[in-house]
């Protein structure tokens, strides 16, 4: 009679208990059931769970989120996440990326995998239409900065109101000049804002022409005394960014302005929402 090794049974049970989640990287436009090998977060095997002609790219993991207080660890996870999405993107040309740490849970053996399939099934139409929307396209980041010192200086030269006040200050005795200086600062602040408004609208209109779709993101803090006045994500056919690049170069050449142009990224900003 064959004797079952108790330790083996124990290990097998533990493995099942510990792997009751599926970490999702992306959904792709293919029903192929493939494995990518051990390229996942912490060396996990990445494979595809198909439903009809689409599939979810996943790895097996415990049903709990990845978390760490160590920034370097998190950075490495995020980079790996991105590498996996890139690998799928290269292979199938069209991906719907998920954000880091999206894990579909399961309660019993095999139920996580079923839940992934059920999710693909339920959302099938929506996923297909998202796939069509981003087919063959990539996302590019466009951030426009200005140097407030240069802009303020130019405004001082070109705005008659500011020039007038500036001259008044020169002629006034100290005490009064202080009050005027405050007024001048407020005036500059206001004019800077309306200048930023004007630039935003102008640049947006120019950039819009070269992008299939566009998302306006929150502006971020910038370094070296610069201010970000515009933060966009643009959806464009892969490698058809030349015209946009030329337009951005023109903005980049303006005095006091600079542009950051990044990508191609998987279309993260265009697959959210309903």
């Amino acid at each position, binding site marked *: 009679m064959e004797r079952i090794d108790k330790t083996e049974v124990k290990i097998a049970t533990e493995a099942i208990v510990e792997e009751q*989640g599926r970490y*999702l990287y*992306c959904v792709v436009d293919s029903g192929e059931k493939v494995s990518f090998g051990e390229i996942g977060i912490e060396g996990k095997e990445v494979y595809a769970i198909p439903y009809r002609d689409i599939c979810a790219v996943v790895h097996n993991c415990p*049903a709990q*989120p*990845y*978390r*760490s207080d*160590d*920034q370097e660890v*998190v*950075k490495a996870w*995020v*980079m790996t*996440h*991105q590498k996996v999405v890139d690998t799928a993107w290269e292979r199938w040309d069209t991906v*719907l*990326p*998920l*954000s*880091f*740490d999206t*894990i*579909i*849970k399961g309660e019993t053996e095999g139920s996580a995998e079923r*839940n992934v399939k059920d*999710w693909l099934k339920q959302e099938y139409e929506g996923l297909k239409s998202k796939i069509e929307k981003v087919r063959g396209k990539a*996302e*590019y*980041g466009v951030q426009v900065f200005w140097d*407030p*010192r240069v802009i303020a200086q130019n405004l001082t030269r070109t705005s008659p109101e500011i020039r007038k006040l500036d001259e008044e200050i020169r002629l006034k005795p100290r005490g009064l000049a202080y009050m005027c200086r405050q007024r001048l600062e407020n005036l500059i*602040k206001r004019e*800077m*804002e309306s200048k*930023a*408004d004007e630039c*935003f609208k102008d640049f*947006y209109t120019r950039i819009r022409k070269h992008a299939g779709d566009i998302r306006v*993101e*929150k*502006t*971020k*803090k*910038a370094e070296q005394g610069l201010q*970000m006045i*515009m933060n966009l994500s643009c959806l464009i056919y892969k490698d058809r*960014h030349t015209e946009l*690049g030329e337009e*951005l*170069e023109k903005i*980049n050449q303006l005095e006091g302005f600079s542009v950051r*142009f*990044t*990508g*191609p*990224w998987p279309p*993260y*900003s265009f*697959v959210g929402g309903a």
Partner: protein
Amino acid sequence: MEPTRNSHATLVDLLDRVLDKGLVINADLIISVAGVPLIGVNLRAALAGMETMLEYGVMKEWDERTRVWESEHRKKNVGANLKAGR
């Protein structure tokens, strides 16, 4: 100008996307990570929106205003495109 994706220079751009964006899944199905401080404070700060009013004041309200303008502009264009039968 050419787009770049050098892994060091564009790390923040990558984090921005991978941490906050992407396909959304029905919350019942997934392990909730909302409110869990996943990453260190410094990394978050680099990602946070511009929050201080700077010396020459491009202000938060301005930032919000431009986005309102954009969404109205977009609606108008969609309307125009629909009318034009595009």
